[in-house]
């Protein structure tokens, strides 16, 4: 094989290099639809250019002829791949099966075989010869009928590809229009070069300008990639989203006529796009009339909620209306003029229904809580008034009896003395039971207030020493009655804890009186110590203790553990639950350890650091009025 120097070779090499470079760029974006087909298309163009390089570099007929025939393989590859790319890029990829691609490729393959085998004889090429163009030779060919079949078919494929792209072009926003225009130009320029060569309108004798045009194609595609972000954002994805989204989408022109709608909108309005397009929007969306009355220019309307009549179901029964959220976005043209409106309708019926159910549940719960609070306040008031009489008159009667009656009873009257003694005891029972009822009412009110978050906490830095002092003083008479010793073991230098002083005293009083209640011999110890970042107060008794199975229950409401006949239950059954509520509201913990027969240890911890969040929120959420809880008179 002999070689020659041709002026076209450097140009064709440049075109090859650009094609390879552009193919590499597309290959990097291969997740995009159509990227593989486009890479192959550009590589085919590059190979075509390279084959042309070798053709023009060959000096003899044999060499030129070989490379001339070879390049047709790349021509065929190029047109088929370009069609595949066009279809995939605009989002019709799924409509193009392998079988369809194979079918499209039948004519190119058959014509290529005919070319390379020369069967039927001279059907593709009728002859070729070398023509001298001064310093170098060119190939002159005469084409046979099969060539024209192949050429017309190829042009048809190119035209179909361009039609597919233009379909997308019409429906696309600016960015995609740029992409599609670049693609079309990139295809049309080399196709024109090819047409000049085959049609005989060629200004350059014997020169097929197509591979040269690929230089331009490569540059236009580069523009497409970097200026219009081709293969980064592809129209196919956008179309798929709009076609498949659940929200109904309407596009309106500036005069509010429908220009486009997606399948979700067709379903919502129970109409076809073909019928609705061109109609005023009110025709399919009657609620628009009211909206446009409120917002004549639509400029100030961005979001609205509308109710649409329910779709009729199969049984013909009326379903509930649907609540739709409607969003209007102006579509601005490049000039800044209104290009129309985009209306998105989202079905929010389920959300609304859930919201309503939630609100109703909350209102019911709040009403119930309020009713419970009001009920307790009323009951408390209604019980308190008669209790005041019961306790008050019992006390007065006892006093009158002691002050007035007892002195006048003769000393020797044993029967009267016995009766007086019994009456005194009976008055004491009436008084103490009345006081127990009062305590129960107070406890129920306390518990209800803490549980509903209406307790007013007065959080200050409190000294645990002082709390124990006050609780000890308040329970001193109980200890004296049962002749029990109270042992205090309080660590020196304990830091203050944030908390409600009176409520914490209430906790310690409760624990101390419980300890006294269940202890007959021995002592009660009050121990306070610091454990890590907490102050732990324990009340340790040597009383009857609590069975292991009952330990969990002692902090439950209205539970008094033990045997009611032998364990002398007293109190309301609410003392420990209240202690637990108070301690937990302080961010602390309360617990009990016990060995039946040996005694029990009740302990509670209070955190040292910071003001307990529960108290703060309780204080913040309870307005001063809330605590009155007054009952109607």
């Amino acid at each position, binding site marked *: 094989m002999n070689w020659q120097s041709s002026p076209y070779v450097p140009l064709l090499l440049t075109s090859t290099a650009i094609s390879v470079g552009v193919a590499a760029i597309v290959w990097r974006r291969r997740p995009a639809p159509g990227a593989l087909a486009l890479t192959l298309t550009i590589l085919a163009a590059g190979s075509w250019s390279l084959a042309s390089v070798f053709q023009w570099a060959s000096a003899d007929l044999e060499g030129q002829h070989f490379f001339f025939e070879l390049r047709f393989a790349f021509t065929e590859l190029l047109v088929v791949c370009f069609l595949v790319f066009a279809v995939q890029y605009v989002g019709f990829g799924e409509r193009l099966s392998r079988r369809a691609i194979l079918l499209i490729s039948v004519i190119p393959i058959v014509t290529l075989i005919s070319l390379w085998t020369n069967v039927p004889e001279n059907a593709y090429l009728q002859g070729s010869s070398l023509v001298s163009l001064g310093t170098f030779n060119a190939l002159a060919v005469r084409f046979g009928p099969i060539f024209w079949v192949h050429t017309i078919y190829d042009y048809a494929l190119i035209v179909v590809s361009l039609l597919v792209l233009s379909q997308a072009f019409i429906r696309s926003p600016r960015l995609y229009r740029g992409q599609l225009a670049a693609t079309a130009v990139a295809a049309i320029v080399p196709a024109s070069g090819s047409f000049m060569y085959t049609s005989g309108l060629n200004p350059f004798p014997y020169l097929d300008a197509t591979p040269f045009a690929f230089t331009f194609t490569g540059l236009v595609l580069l523009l497409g990639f970097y200026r219009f972000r081709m293969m980064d954002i592809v129209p196919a994805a956008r179309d798929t989203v709009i076609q498949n989204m659940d929200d109904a989408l309407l596009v309106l022109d500036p005069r509010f006529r429908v220009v486009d709608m997606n399948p979700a909108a067709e379903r919502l309005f129970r109409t076809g796009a073909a019928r609705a397009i061109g109609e005023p929007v009110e025709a399919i969306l009657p609620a628009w009339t009211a909206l446009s009355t409120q917002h004549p220019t639509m400029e100030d309307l961005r979001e609205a909620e509308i109710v649409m009549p329910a779709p009729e179901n199969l049984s013909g029964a009326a379903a509930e209306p649907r609540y739709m959220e409607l969003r209007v976005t102006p579509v601005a043209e490049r000039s800044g003029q209104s290009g129309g409106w985009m209306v998105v309708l989202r079905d929010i019926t389920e959300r609304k229904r859930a919201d309503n159910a939630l609100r109703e549940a909350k209102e019911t719960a709040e009403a119930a809580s309020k009713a419970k609070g009001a009920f307790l306040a009323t009951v408390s008031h209604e019980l308190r008034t008669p209790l005041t009489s019961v306790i*008050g008159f019992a006390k*007065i009667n006892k006093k009158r009896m002691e002050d007035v009656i007892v002195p006048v009873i003769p000393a020797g009257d044993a029967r009267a003395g016995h009766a007086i003694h019994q009456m005194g005891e009976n008055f004491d029972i009436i008084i103490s039971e009345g006081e127990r009822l009062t305590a129960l009412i*107070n406890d129920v009110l306390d518990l209800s207030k803490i549980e509903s978050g209406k307790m*007013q906490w007065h959080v200050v830095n409190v000294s645990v020493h002082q709390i124990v002092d006050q609780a000890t003083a308040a329970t001193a008479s109980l200890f004296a009655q049962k002749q029990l010793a109270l042992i205090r073991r309080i660590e020196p230098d304990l830091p203050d804890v944030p908390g409600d002083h009176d409520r914490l005293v209430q906790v310690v009083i409760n624990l101390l009186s419980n300890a006294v209640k269940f202890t007959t011999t021995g002592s009660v110890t009050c121990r306070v110590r610091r454990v890590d970042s907490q102050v732990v107060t324990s009340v340790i008794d040597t009383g009857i203790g609590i069975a292991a199975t009952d330990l969990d229950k002692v902090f439950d409401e209205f539970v008094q553990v033990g045997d009611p006949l032998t364990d002398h239950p007293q109190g309301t059954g609410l003392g420990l639950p209240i202690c637990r509520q108070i301690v937990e509201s302080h961010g602390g913990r309360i617990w009990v350890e016990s060995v039946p027969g040996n005694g029990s240890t009740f302990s509670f911890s209070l955190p040292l650091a910071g003001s307990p969040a529960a108290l703060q929120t309780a204080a913040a959420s309870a307005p001063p009025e809330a*605590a009155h809880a007054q009952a109607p008179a």
Partner: protein
Amino acid sequence: MTSILIVDDEPHIRLLIRQTLEELEDDGVELMDAADGESGLQTIREQKPALVFLDVMMPKMSGFDVCAAVKADAEMQSTRIVLLTARGQEADHQRGAQAGADSYLTKPFDPDQLLATARDALHL
């Protein structure tokens, strides 16, 4: 003559307080009562008692309102007022203090304590 007014809509409570304070009559104290806020206020205005035991929750006019009216009036404001609250609620005490009450007792109150309060107020 020194007098004490008892204002409560519950007749038993009025009776209880009256019996509790009965022994003060030996010291020349006159006991009066009223069954609601309005008539209580009228009695205070006309009789100018030295001390009033005033129930909070009453028909027509609450104890808070009576107390506020008394303390706002220059002629009556020297009257000492002890509120009888339904519950030892601090909020009630705050409202009572705002209305100008001198002290309060929580129902059910202890007759001895009520008597001591009265003696203390009247310096007896």
